């Protein structure tokens, strides 16, 4: 596929972007983000999340401007256009690795969740293999299938919010007071710690060319971001009022610990259901990243995307198995969070500046000749 419009049969309607953005942001980070932010910002953690949400909106706005200046190009092509074949290829390779790493981080974290909560003795490679097979199966269907899975996943998992009524019954609303006790720098640190949880919207740079009616794309995108931020804030608030401060600092996956109090007459342990359903929540994440990463191989080396996908799926299994302990996984998450901060929140600005400079340069050239 040369640049220019992708074929009509591969395109999807713009309103689906809402689900793509939402599902790609909501992932494994949601399981245990509360503690990390609470460490920094205390009971004002929800303010940090609002700030991170606003920042995400601004970043997406910049991304959209960049994309509009380069119609029908995804990020790989924009890079090639900007930095030339060699440097563009290098940056593309880095971005591709980042997305592959994202997929690995997500799947490894999920596997750890299952190992901690349900099957302590399940080997990592086994679950990773299952996930890798599912991902491969989905991505082989192409972008429209992956977007469809985003939609399906949203419909099938959004009802979990209702269950949060149970922890609210044990809520101590006093925990939220006094509001704004944290200093600006503490709130800022909390916001930075949100990176791992709030990333996912950078996928926009790759799916945008496939949107059928681009002029109406920005509303669903921003709505998706808003929905994610609201969800995170709601869950953070419930977490703060449900746990006492020191208790929260000792809780690794606060979201599932919230589910631990849920009890139905016909179902005593709801968290088992929640963890199993979580697979549906992370699946769109994994598929999107794998789709975008394997596309990178096609763009850089002009190989078949299918083979790249197989290779990446295999890598996912192997690399996931290298991480064994809670400590290693924590370190991995921290480092990935730091890197993602630069790539997702910082880099779009540089990119936008570069695109503007290039345009001006071209315009001057045009005037000269």
């Amino acid at each position, binding site marked *: 596929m040369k640049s220019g419009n992708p074929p009509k049969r591969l395109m999807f309607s713009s309103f689906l972007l809402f689900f793509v953005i939402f599902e790609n942001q909501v992932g494994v980070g949601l399981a245990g983000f509360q503690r990390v932010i609470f460490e920094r910002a205390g009971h004002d953690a929800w303010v940090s999340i609002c700030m991170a949400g606003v920042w995400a909106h601004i970043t997406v706005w910049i991304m959209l401007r960049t994309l509009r200046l380069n119609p029908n190009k995804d990020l790989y092509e924009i890079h090639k256009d900007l930095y030339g074949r060699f440097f563009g290829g290098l940056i593309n390779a880095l971005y591709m690795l980042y997305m592959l790493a994202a997929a690995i981080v997500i799947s490894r974290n999920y596997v750890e969740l299952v190992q*901690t*909560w*349900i*099957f302590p*003795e*399940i*080997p990592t490679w*086994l679950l990773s293999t299952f996930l890798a*097979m599912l991902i491969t*199966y989905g991505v082989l269907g192409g972008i429209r299938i992956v977007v469809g899975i985003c939609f399906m996943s949203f419909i099938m998992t959004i009802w979990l919010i209702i269950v949060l009524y149970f922890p609210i019954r*044990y809520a*101590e609303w*006093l*925990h*939220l*007071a*006094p509001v704004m*006790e944290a200093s600006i720098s503490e709130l800022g640190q909390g916001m930075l710690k949100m990176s791992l949880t709030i990333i996912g919207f950078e996928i926009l740079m790759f799916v945008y060319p496939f949107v059928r009616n681009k002029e109406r794309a920005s509303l669903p995108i921003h709505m998706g971001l808003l929905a994610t931020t609201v969800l995170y804030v709601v869950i953070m608030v419930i977490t703060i009022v*449900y*746990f*006492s*401060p*020191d*208790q929260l600092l*000792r809780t690794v996956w606060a979201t599932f*610990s919230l589910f*631990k*109090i849920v*009890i139905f007459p016909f179902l*005593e*342990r709801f*968290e088992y259901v929640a963890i199993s359903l979580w697979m549906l929540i992370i699946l769109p994440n994994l598929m999107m990243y794998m789709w975008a990463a394997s596309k990178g191989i096609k763009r850089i080396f002009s190989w078949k995307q299918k083979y790249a996908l197989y290779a990446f799926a295999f890598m996912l299994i192997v690399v996931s198995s290298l991480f064994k302990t809670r400590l290693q996984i924590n370190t991995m998450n921290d480092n990935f969070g730091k890197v993602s901060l630069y790539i997702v929140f910082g880099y779009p600005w540089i990119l936008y500046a570069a695109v503007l400079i290039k345009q001006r340069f071209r315009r001057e050239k045009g005037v000269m000749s």
Partner: protein
Amino acid sequence: MRKSVIVLSIIVLLLPIWTGCVQKRILEELGLVVVVGYDPAEKDRIKGTALLHQIDPAAKEKVQVVVTNANTSKGLRNAQNREVSKRVVSGQLRVAIYNEKLARNGIITLADTLSRDSVISDTIFLTVSRGSADNIITHRFPEISNIGTYLYKMIRQNIQGEQISSCTLHEFIHDVYSVGKDPVLPVIERIGDQILLNHTVLFRNDKMVGELSADEAFVLKLIRDRYKAGSLEISLDAEPFRQLKPSFQGNKVDIVIENISSSSQIKLVDPSIPSFSIHIKMNVRIQEVSTDLKLGEKKVIRAFESEISKEFVRRIQKLIAKTQAVQSDPIGFGEVYHAKVRHSNLTDEKWREMYPNAKVHVDVKTIMVRSGVVE
């Protein structure tokens, strides 16, 4: 199409290998722990008593009691496994009982292991036993087939009936780790073939420091929880009633009231002392009166309302004094303080020093809603 058939067949072929990777849990081969009791043993070890429920149609006894000694509670489970033919699992654990002697030394490590284990629900009940826990679990009750389930239902019934404060694992851990709030747990005692649930234990963090009677626990619950219903027998001073009805004999009036709904508000008045005010609004219903006063008259109703309020104020003051004496704050004044004072950096030690000096102004407003079907 053909490809997916190939993939599918590969998956099906590999299925037996994959499923072999996870430990199977066959119900007939498991011993389900329903209740555990912890007692102190010699040399700082703990004695654990577990009651296992068995799924075995052939067995006469559906329960089995295992008593073991170990240094840690997970060590207890390993020791239990060595004593029984089935694998001990704690997913069905419903009640944990701690001996008061252990409770005095602190039980956070024992409670923490329960909350750390993902298999154990956060909704299990923690209790303190009068005397040894072993004594309750190993006793053969003629009318109770499974003491674990019985205890669970009994505690649940009392919590739902608003007789005792909720004592789930989550709430205990929450209050232990909270600065400015301490947990309370109910006391179980066995007298002959009977199980009683009367008293409530006060904790300082995770150490037992005192006890409350059932009446005191009722008052505590009134302040602490969003209260719905619970009934209490109180005796009122007869003086005001004598004015209404000169023929009245005796020097007190006993009544039983049922609390239909109530709300309590704790406010911080002055952070420097610290002083607090508690406002309680109660809607009550009279269930029983020891005299034949005309409950239809406005004056009588007013007299009852003010007397009930006075009695509650007195009881609450007494309760607070009692908790201050043992430096335990089950009501959560510290949390209020922490929420209202900016940058207080309240620590546990700080609050322990402050709390005994706290002044509390209590204000109770009682509204008599109903007095039954006769007047």
